[in-house]
């Protein structure tokens, strides 16, 4: 039997009181793509961050090619031939691709003598593995998908034999995902082994040779793909607590939910233009509408104007051109409070930045935006008795883990903060729901919970605008999908026309607009 390239044994890791990993084992054989599957909070990334030297394990051993090693830093990891590509890249954006790749490998400060030689080698590597990148291009001008290839090349240039990819398909179009999978195959043929962290079973089945499932920081099982059944993987990820037959994630929308009539137009957006923070146009003439009882999904690679679009609709960012009407009321900028009062619920994209008051109480957080209206306020005074009663109700209903409404909100964990955001949005009767990445960072049961809530609203006649970077989520929930590319709505598809690859082309800007209607 061959020696594993990497073996991790009995790994323990705790962050404060939270146990992230408990006696976890992991083995990577030479020349395999090993899927590390689990929901959010399962411990996948933590385990690999330990292998890459970003965290120190509390207990456990790491062996590389059968030799016991200690890894204190990414530098140690690289010296053992281990490289990692994170979800968020650390790149010097004004530098070129080649400069970014060379950063940290130059023998001394300021020596750029062998840049030309290196560029040739990068070009060769890129060509060899099908990682299409121009070494002289400046990183800030590249889309996310290409930046990821830069990150992979960075590792390959350093000669890694173990490449760890953390959720690499986030923000890639389906075409880019296919290309990435082909590149991974090419790397394996050259003797590189890959650890592929993901929460998507389909990706595991598509590209991996073996899969290890983690749940709640513990091993569930490891199987070769040939023996892996999709159903087992689902069970392994979620345990017994989820009713899979009625799950949106695994069973999809019920058929009777497709036969459903839509009501009046609730969100009407005509030729909308919105500025980004730097005064350039981020949304450049968008037109669409959302009807009562409809989920309208907006797909697109992050940074194509989604944030600005949503903020303009909520009155947070001024409308620079065109016309937005929500529930019959024109929105130009600054109407947020009255929109919330009229039943426009909002789940912001960045929960920590945009929706959370860390230094205030949980109760303070639960009434944010609704604090001027009854029952929370009477005139200019707050009704704390009512607020506390409501807060207790929401804490229980949404299973927010906290000691009570007067607990400091900074004590909440990420998943609990998202539950708080949901509780706040869903606590009031709504006619319109605007949700931006509502399930980002949530574990599977919580994601499922959000989907049920969204579909329940939709079935009760709420107009839902769902902006998401997760195309699978959009395909699952939406009645129509509009695709944003560079601030323009490049196409709107009905549910019958949903086609991942066509949407992918639109997201990448390579789809030719057909002269419809």
């Amino acid at each position: 039997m061959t020696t594993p390239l990497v073996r991790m044994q009995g790994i323990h890791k705790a962050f404060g009181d939270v146990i992230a990993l408990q006696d976890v084992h992991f083995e990577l054989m030479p020349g395999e793509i090993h899927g590390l599957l689990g929901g959010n909070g399962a411990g996948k990334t933590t385990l690999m961050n330990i292998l890459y030297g970003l965290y120190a394990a509390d207990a456990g051993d790491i062996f590389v090619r059968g030799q016991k090693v200690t890894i204190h830093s990414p530098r140690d990891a690289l010296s053992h031939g281990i490289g990692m590509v994170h979800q968020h890249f650390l790149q010097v954006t004004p530098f070129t691709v080649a400069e970014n790749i060379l950063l940290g490998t130059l023998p001394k400060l300021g020596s750029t003598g062998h840049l030309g030689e290196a560029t040739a080698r990068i070009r060769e590597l890129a060509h060899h593995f099908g990682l299409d990148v121009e070494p002289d291009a400046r990183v800030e001008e590249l889309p996310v998908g290409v930046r990821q290839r830069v990150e992979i090349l960075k590792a390959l240039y350093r000669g890694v034999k173990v490449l760890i990819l953390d959720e690499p398909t986030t923000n890639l179009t389906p075409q880019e995902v296919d290309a990435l999978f082909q590149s991974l195959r090419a790397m394996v043929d050259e003797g590189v082994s890959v650890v592929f962290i993901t929460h998507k079973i389909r990706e595991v089945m598509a590209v991996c040779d073996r899969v290890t499932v983690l749940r709640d920081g513990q091993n569930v099982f490891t199987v070769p793909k040939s023996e892996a059944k999709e159903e087992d993987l689902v069970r392994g990820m979620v345990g017994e607590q989820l009713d899979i037959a009625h799950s949106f994630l695994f069973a999809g929308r019920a058929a009777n939910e497709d036969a459903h009539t839509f009501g009046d137009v609730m969100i009407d957006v005509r030729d909308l233009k919105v500025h980004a923070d730097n005064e350039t146009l981020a949304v450049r003439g968008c037109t669409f509408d959302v009807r009562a009882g409809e989920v309208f999904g907006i797909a697109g690679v992050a940074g194509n104007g989604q944030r600005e679009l949503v903020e303009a609709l909520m009155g947070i960012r001024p409308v620079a051109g065109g016309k937005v009407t929500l529930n019959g009321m024109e929105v130009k900028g600054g109407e947020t409070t009255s929109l919330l009062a009229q039943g426009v619920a909002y789940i912001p994209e960045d929960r920590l930045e945009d929706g959370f008051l860390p230094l205030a109480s949980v109760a303070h957080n639960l009434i944010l935006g609704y604090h001027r209206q009854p029952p929370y306020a009477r005139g200019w005074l707050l009704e704390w008795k009512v607020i506390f009663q409501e807060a207790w109700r929401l804490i229980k209903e949404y299973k927010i883990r906290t000691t009570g409404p007067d607990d400091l909100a900074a004590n909440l964990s990420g998943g609990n903060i998202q539950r708080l955001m949901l509780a706040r949005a869903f606590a009031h009767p709504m006619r319109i729901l605007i949700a931006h990445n509502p399930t980002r960072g949530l574990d599977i049961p919580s994601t499922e919970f959000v989907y049920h809530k969204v579909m329940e609203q939709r079935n009760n006649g709420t107009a839902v605008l769902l902006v998401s970077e997760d195309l699978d989520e959009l395909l699952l929930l939406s009645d129509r999908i509009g695709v944003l590319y560079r601030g323009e709505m490049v196409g709107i598809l009905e549910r019958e026309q949903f086609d991942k690859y066509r949407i992918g082309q639109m997201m990448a800007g390579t789809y030719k607009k057909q002269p419809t209607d």
Partner: protein
Amino acid sequence: MSVATISQSRLPRWLNAVGPYVVAVVVSFAAAGVFIGLMGFNVLRAYETILFTSFRTPNGFIQTLLKFVPLTLQALAFTVPLAAGKFNIGGEGQLIVGGIAAAAVGIVFAGLPGILLLPLVLLASVVAGAIWAGIPGWLLYRFRISEILTTVLLNFVSFQLVNYVAVEIWPDPAAGHPTTVPIGMGGVLPLLIRRPPLHVGFFLAIVVAGLVYFYLTRTVTGYELVATGANPRAAHVYGIDVRKLSVLSLVIGGMLGGLSGGIEVAGLHHRLIEGFQSNYLTLGILTGLIAKGNSAAVPFVAFFLAVLEVGASALQRTMMIPGEMVIIVEALIVLFVLLSDVVRR
């Protein structure tokens, strides 16, 4: 049922909040004791002087209460803007212009009866303080100039202003120091106790502290102010006009700072005296920091610091130990209280 759960969860939090203070005070005193001992003084007697001068004689106690008033108001002038995430370092200037306005009204309308003059004097100080803090507020709103800078700089302007008023406009030639003539008797705060004299400013400060607490915790704009301080971006996203609230918080801080000056003039000096601001700005900010910006805790901390301050002057008088020793103790307390947060994290 829910009420019971709330109060249950509050009890350990109380201990949690008070614990670090006790530790900080004990450690600071121990550290100061080492110095006092090294300087060759009797450490226990020094401790006794610092802590008990306030409670040994009626005079000591009244002195403490008189210091408590400007300390509390100055601390609130710092903590209210802080709740909105703004730093008001201009409490001193606001105190001075408040005092100037109070003296001006008290001198110009000296003939008015007390029922009119006293409210006018205090109102003038509040308005003057609001204007003095409103200038940085406007600069912040209009040009996004940091309020830290502008509030500090306006302190220096106020130093010149008090000189001008006391030397050029209403000078008292009999005084050897820049001083104005006294205000009308109707503008003087009534006394609670005649001998030693204690004016009603003590009650006023407590009532104002209560109002500030009520404002921040029970009113809608108070909530918005706290939300702005907790996360201005999120407050903005949820429809709160954070720029207006930043200005409002500074203006309220200015009102409190101005009132502290008005009370000093109407209650203590009955005239404007150059230098009457003492070191209340520093002590007020120390108070606010020890209270960790919590306005509800300010009166208690202010009382404690007033005790230390009165102890400090006694220390200097009776034991010849420099009173600055007490400032060091106070600063150490701030350090240890802030440090306890870091440690617990």
